[in-house]
């Protein structure tokens, strides 16, 4: 056991810190629409051009080929610098990309990976369906093989930023007669293909602006060569990257939230007086969250330690569950510290906006209830 980083790691950290300080974009990140796309893709391109994109991705596909410790350091410095999260690039960088790195063929890797890193290609997710949410494997969007093409018919829903995306990681049923987990394929879908229609869905933080879309596929055709990791092997492919990649990406959030708790303490002292705070219910909750955020960072280090020992394992789901629930507690407490002003102008006050936004953290990528099933069954070995 040790907390030391090597001299090379330290040097990497200092370079990352210096570069981030000089290069993070000025101004508040827009939360919606084309403005957000312009902001996020430009910031991603800036990182790529300077050689900071894809820390752990292979060098032959535009990455830096570095280990998980460097990835951890980069995320730590990224959050410490207050760099904006480019959510629009999230699926490409943390899910579709790593899936193609692990399971794609050479042609797929050459074609799709670099544009993710450079910010040219925005990916969205096509997993959930109107009748297949937590029971994802029951999905029914069909893909029929017609020569060297797949013909897709059906519907996907809760696709974040689908209307701003270029590509989609899509789960389709390619063998309706097989058991439900065994007839699914993971495919690369081009959002410009004919036969796709989008219906916008607004979310609770912005009742007038689309966030999700529902996708309707009406005999949309893509090359059969867009199947990643083999026909009917999609469930395994999707599950293999779902947990771990999202877990490491959470490092940024966890550090950002630790900083937020410190800001909240300063603001609470101003509002309630520092001499009163330690006897106040708000003070007790702040202290608990300080301890929780310290533990969340230690869990991250534990997860990285396990992964470096070659055993990423299902335990990373423990960290995800912890961080998700603590984020909600932090945001709720932030609102209590603000007081009555919290009822005003939610779009302009980030503390209010993100309070509402954080309700997604225990729903997206598997609800916290499904995650507890996964922990019970895969970490603890409890029966189904």
């Amino acid at each position, binding site marked *: *056991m040790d907390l030391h980083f090597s001299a090379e790691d330290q040097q990497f950290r200092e370079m990352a810190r210096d570069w981030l300080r000089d290069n993070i974009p000025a101004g508040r990140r827009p939360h919606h629409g084309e403005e957000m796309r312009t902001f996020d893709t430009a910031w991603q391109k800036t990182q790529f051009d300077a050689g900071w994109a894809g820390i752990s991705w292979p060098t032959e596909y535009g990455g830096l080929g570095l280990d998980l410790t460097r990835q951890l350091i980069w995320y730590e410095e990224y959050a410490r610098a207050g760099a904006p999260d480019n959510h629009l690039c999230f699926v490409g960088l943390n899910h579709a990309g790593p899936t193609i790195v692990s399971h794609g063929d050479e042609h797929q890797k050459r074609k799709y990976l670099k544009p993710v890193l450079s910010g040219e290609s925005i990916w969205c997710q096509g997993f959930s369906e109107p009748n297949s949410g937590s029971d994802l494997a029951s999905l029914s969007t069909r893909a029929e093989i017609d020569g060297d093409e797949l013909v897709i018919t059906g519907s996907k829903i809760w696709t974040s930023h689908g209307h701003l995306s270029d590509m989609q990681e899509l789960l389709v049923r390619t063998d309706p007669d097989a058991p439900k987990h065994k007839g699914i394929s993971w495919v690369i879908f081009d959002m410009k293909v004919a036969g796709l229609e989008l219906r916008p869905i607004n979310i609770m933080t912005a009742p007038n602006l689309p966030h999700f879309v529902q996708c309707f596929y009406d005999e949309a055709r893509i090359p059969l060569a867009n199947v990643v990791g083999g026909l009917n092997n999609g469930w395994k492919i999707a599950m293999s990257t779902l947990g771990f990649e999202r877990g490491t990406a959470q490092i940024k959030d966890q550090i950002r939230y630790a900083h937020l708790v410190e800001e909240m303490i300063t603001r609470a002292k101003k509002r309630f007086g520092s001499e009163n705070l*330690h006897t106040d219910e708000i003070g007790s909750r702040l*202290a608990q969250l*300080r*301890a*929780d955020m*310290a533990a969340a960072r230690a869990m991250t280090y534990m997860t990285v*330690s396990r992964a470096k020992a070659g055993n990423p394992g299902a335990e990373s789901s423990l960290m995800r569950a*912890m961080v998700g629930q603590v984020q909600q507690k932090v945001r709720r407490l932030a609102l209590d510290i603000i007081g009555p002003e919290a009822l005003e102008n939610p779009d302009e006050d980030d503390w209010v906006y993100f309070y509402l936004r954080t309700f997604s953290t225990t729903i997206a990528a598997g609800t916290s209830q499904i995650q507890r099933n996964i922990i019970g069954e895969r970490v603890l070995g*409890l029966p189904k």
Partner: protein
Amino acid sequence: MNLLPDSQQQQILDTLSGLLREKAPIDRFREHGEVGNEDDRLWPILGDLGFLGLGISDSFGGVGLSAAEEVLVYREFGNQLLSVGVFGLTLGARIAALGGDDTMCRQILSGSLIIGVASSLHTPVQMSETACAGAFHLFEASKADLILLMNEQGAALITADQFVERKSVKPMDAILTLERSQLPASRPALWIDASDDALHTRAILLASAYATGIAATTQSMAVEYAKIREQFGKPIGSFQAVKHLCAEMAIRSEAAQSQCLFSALVVAEDRDDKDFQAISSKITSVDAALQNAASNIQIHGAFGFTAEANAHHFLKRAHVMDQLWGDLRHQRARLLSLPTPAT
């Protein structure tokens, strides 16, 4: 950076857990009388194998390792609910070594001195090199030669006969002996000022490590029971209501364990944020121990509520860990008063 034990640390762990499973199985409490335990029979064995002096320099008869190894063994002590008298020995030996009392240090490490543990009651405590005073709970002090006493100002070993008005009280955790007593202003036999060594921080850290053992063991007891106990024709662990309770236990255990190991390394390096990290560790681990111990009773159903089941021992000991060197309320207030760590 690596939070996993290295091969030497793993070897220490394997040796100790094997030894404790044999010499100190949880079922040992059933064979004992109404109050107390016979764990002091283990002290010479643990001392002989070096487990009491892991963090003590070898020139004083210790092993010369760090807080990291101490934390690993205290987690095992918590797994087996070893008598809290062991805190008196580990921390007492450190006081003796830092105070330059080689003879006393070696006596403690050989298990031939018994050291009780004082925990302050509600009244203010006086603590200095010249005089310590206050009202205390004394744990495991009935046969003790010395009493361990510490707070944020420093750490003291006080000869047991300086405590007056000693009165045995019926302990909630009946495996431990408990007394109430007064300490009139008394000069400690040995005193280590907090500015010379963060003994109080280390005590908090070791209590938190012990609590992670309680959290982990109650988690595995509950999970194992949920796999074999059947109702409605299925193991109860297949029902989400039970499964999710177990998952919550695992999340709390992982958080507590990770923070405890992290803070042990911070304490070992004597970093500026050692109090911040160790207090965070005590808060998360005591919370995990209390909640997991409660869930373990719940998952065992009516059997969990019996005296015969071991589940209640873990809950009661978790409350002792909460009280030692400041309870959750106290630790939260302290944590809030500390500056933001630099790293």
